[in-house]
């Protein structure tokens, strides 16, 4: 390995060192503000190191990792999202009587796993990154050990993630057994020579789809989502919803585009079915929820369905549309869970719709931020979600996948209904029936408030003037083709 290799790997190296430094700092001096500050510095430096790395890409570092513009774009996304999660988590953890500092170590390691995931073009690094991410997430989901529901969420996530990882491994093994390679580009060459038709390859890809499907939480691999979303602390849910899914979508794009598996008719069909099932089931089930976290969980299932429509569209426009949608979705979910985190008290998270009744008349700014996030999820103009949906439909229309677009249109109209339920509650003028018994709203922590303001700013910027991000995404996607 020479210096250029280290340069492109700088983000990973910095993040890995951050984990070590933070851990040592905790060992010597337990201080919540210090730990959080160190974490943020590490994340900021890792983000800054994207620029030196960008000068040296694309570069294959060992057979395991490739750092190209695609990876760098997702690096940036993951680092920025983790940065926001840390800011939210600080105020959230301050209200809880737990050992707070280790949270940040876990979070940094999870982010590191995500980085490895998006930079991998080899089965080994793929699995390695995935496991680093998953194992830390088990612990994060169950971080508030005094809550039974959090423990349940952690256990559920552990069992199902382990099972899906087994499927993924088995799928990789089958593909390897048939083609004799674990590198994505080499795999593409093998498949192009006619290996695609072989039953073991098909079976292997199908097993791998299970693994992908679980992490992305698409139907029928979605069963963990509502429970984990509800049980995990709000900042962790934000992390799972944004970073974990984002990294998984990145590797989905990379694997299926670069290994040529996307050209298999069978995998396109499978993903089309999954997309339709996710859009329909996610939106329909969200209709019947009264818990905001569960609503967002089912809505995330639907949104991953929309993302798969972009994936189905294929080509540069499909990949770019998917990436833009994901960017918008990450900003939006971070904002939405940020509001939940800001309103949560030590006893419980603010997760019932009733908790939000009339919020606008008491906390107008917070309510407006939440409204913006919900409208973005619903795909209303001025927000990033609108352009994301627009881009996705455009990608679908360019590929003429009309049936998927039709399902997208109809289900997103259904989706409006439950977003509006929350919005209606936010602006309700009559108080909740048990208003008097409710504890007063907690003060919004300064850091969390700033983060939310920044996220709202980004949301509107993406929705009104997306040119800068679009250019970056298009440049990044060129690495895949």
């Amino acid at each position, binding site marked *: 390995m020479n210096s250029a290799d280290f340069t492109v790997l700088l983000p990973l190296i910095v993040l890995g060192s951050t984990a070590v430094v933070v851990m040592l700092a905790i060992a010597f001096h337990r201080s919540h503000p210090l730990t959080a500050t160190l974490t943020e510095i590490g994340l900021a430096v890792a983000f800054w190191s994207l620029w030196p790395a960008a000068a040296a890409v694309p570069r294959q570092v060992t057979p395991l990792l490739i750092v190209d513009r695609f990876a760098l774009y997702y690096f940036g996304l993951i680092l920025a999202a983790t940065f926001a999660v840390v800011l939210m988590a600080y105020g959230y953890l301050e209200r809880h009587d737990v050992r707070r500092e280790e949270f940040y170590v876990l979070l940094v390691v999870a982010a590191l796993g995500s980085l490895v995931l998006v930079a991998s073009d080899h089965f080994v690094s793929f699995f390695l990154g995935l496991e680093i991410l998953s194992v830390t997430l088990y612990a994060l989901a169950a971080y508030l050990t005094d809550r039974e529901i959090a423990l349940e969420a952690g256990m559920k996530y552990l069992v199902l993630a382990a099972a899906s990882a087994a499927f993924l491994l088995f799928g990789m093994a089958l593909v390897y057994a048939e083609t004799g390679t674990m590198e994505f580009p080499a795999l593409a060459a093998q498949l192009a020579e006619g290996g695609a038709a072989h039953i073991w390859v098909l079976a292997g890809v199908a097993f791998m789809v299970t693994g992908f499907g679980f992490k992305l939480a698409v139907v029928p691999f979605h069963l963990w989502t509502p429970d984990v979303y509800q049980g995990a602390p709000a900042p962790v849910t934000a992390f799972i919803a944004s970073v974990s899914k984002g990294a998984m979508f990145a590797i989905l794009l990379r694997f299926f585009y670069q290994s040529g598996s996307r050209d298999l008719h069978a995998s396109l069909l499978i993903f089309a079915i999954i997309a339709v099932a996710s859009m329909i089931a996610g939106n329909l089930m969200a209709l019947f929820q009264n818990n905001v976290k569960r609503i967002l969980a089912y809505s995330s299932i639907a949104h991953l369905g929309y993302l798969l429509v972009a994936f189905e569209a294929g080509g540069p426009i499909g990949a770019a549309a998917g990436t833009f949608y994901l960017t918008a979705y990450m900003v939006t979910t971070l904002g939405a869970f940020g509001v939940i985190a800001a309103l949560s008290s030590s006893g419980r998270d603010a997760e019932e719709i009733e908790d939000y009744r009339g919020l606008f008349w008491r906390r107008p700014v917070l309510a407006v931020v939440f409204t913006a996030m919900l409208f973005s999820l619903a795909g209303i103009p001025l927000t990033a979600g609108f352009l994301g949906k627009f881009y996705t439909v455009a990608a679908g229309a360019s590929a003429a996948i009309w049936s998927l677009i039709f399902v997208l249109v109809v289900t997103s*109209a259904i989706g409006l209904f439950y977003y509006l339920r929350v919005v209606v509650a936010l602006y309700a003028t009559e108080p909740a029936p048990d208003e008097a018994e409710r504890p007063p709203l907690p003060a919004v922590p300064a850091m969390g408030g700033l983060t939310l303001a920044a996220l709202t700013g980004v949301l509107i910027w993406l929705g009104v003037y997306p040119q800068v991000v679009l250019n970056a995404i298009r440049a990044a996607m060129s690495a895949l083709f």
Partner: protein
Amino acid sequence: MSLVWLIVIPLAAGVIAGLVARRSALAARWLSLLAMIAGFILSVRMWLEYYPHISLLSQQKWIAEIDVPWIAGFGIHFHLAMDGLSLLLVTLTFLLGIVSVMISWREIRDGIGFFHFNLLWVIAGIVAVFLAIDLFLFYFAWELMLIPMYFLIAIWGHERRVYAAVKFFLFTQLSGLLMLVAILTLYFAHHAATGVYTFDYPALIGTPLAPHVALLVMLGFFAAFAVKLPMFPLHTWLPDAHTEAPTAGSVVLAGLLLKTGAYGLLRFVLPLFPDAAHRFAPVATGLAIAGILYGALLAYGQTDLKRLVAYTSVSHLGFVLLGIFIGTPLAIAGAFVTIIAHGISTGTMFMMVGMVQERTHTRDMDRLGGLWQTVPKLSGAGLFFVLASIGLPGLGDFVGEFLVLLGTYRVNPRLAALATIGVLCSTFYGLKFVARAFHGTNRNNWKLPDLSAREIAIVGSMMVILLWIGLYPQPILNTFAPAAQSIEQILAGPPTASSTATPAPPAAPWHSLEPVRLSPPWTPPPRGAGIPARVPLSLPSGAGSRPERSGFGTARAPLPVRGAGSVSPSVSPSAPERLVSPWRSPSPLAADLSGGNR
């Protein structure tokens, strides 16, 4: 730049009003009012500047235009443009905006800042819809105007406001998404034909589409506009939304939001898909007639005054739809006058109902009655607007509906006869309104305050405007004429490959159509043979002597078309069908018909 101001003024004023309301509610109200007045003055000034030059300006398409790149990656431009059609609608928007702020002066007492923010933003959204001619920008504005409207209904509405607001939102959103898919299909079809990605409306006109694709894409647009219009049977959101909205919300809904649907049909559906619209015309006109009759019938059955007025909207907007899809110059002009007149008369009707409700706390006819004895001015004004609504000659609505009926009769007398029944029915519900609410004995022994000076000012100016439209509609027709002509020219325009399945050869880029469209290669028929292409539309007094080109109602009419017969002698040999039907490619039926006539 003034176009941008028209949008920015209400947007900025909305934000400021929302912020200052915490300190002073009065300041927020005055600020909103001043912003609306500023917008109104601006648009009236543009009208006055433009009016003397109509005949010149009909050569060029837009009165004012602004075009800057926005999202270059998609070929999206921030492209606003104004012609006579949008100018009048924008003026109407600000007029009703002033009214909406004024009638909310006492009605709205909670959340004043947020109310005015929403009111001004919905006005800004509507203005943007009328001005945007980049299809992406149009869709953007189209969706954006819904949200403040949703809040207006959901927060300041009446008893079932949440239900009504959600229903309104779902209907319009779903249909809007269909339009989005249609816009994108058109966008990619245009790219396939020309290699250019653009959402620009002038460039997209004449995009070649296979007939079945054109029909589907047209239906995508039509769905969005028909829901807004609202067309029977997609109207069910309307009575709920109108009834539950606060008075200002009802005025904006009935006066403006419905008009965006009609505007969309005139601006986009007809010019972009002339052939598909032609084929769809029998269905659209049939549904229009159904809407006219059904709306009138249900209006008669209501006891809630607001619901009654809401159903009359369904009926009146049926005339607009009928006029647009009959497609002759007279019918289109009639549809346009109906749009303006209905905006004023129905907007004021909702206002009167709001005033009644404010005083009596009920809208139920069964509990009203005898209002004339205690509030004679209010009742008299109410009678005036009811008469306008049922189409009394001399008032605005009459002119519009009469022109539509006239245009329809030329093409298809049966449709005209059916539509006339709708006019007849309107007398019943109108008289029921007056008889049950204003006449009779004052059973409740109400002693109510009559119209205040503020209310007299609003109602009085609306009366004057309606009388003006009713007695001298020529300025409106003249202003609209150039826009109408460009629509007509596209309908009648030079035959293009768009009606055939084969895409145009790249050698003939569709951009080159623009000058062609503006000055068509065919010579207008001599005076007396058809409506001269450059002469502003005139009142129907002279129309009887002028045989008229028939619209696409012909495709359905089994009857010989009178106009067609007398036109054919003067037809230039190069384009016989064009004068018989303003539609570019005659369907087999229309061809048969014109052949039969000759």
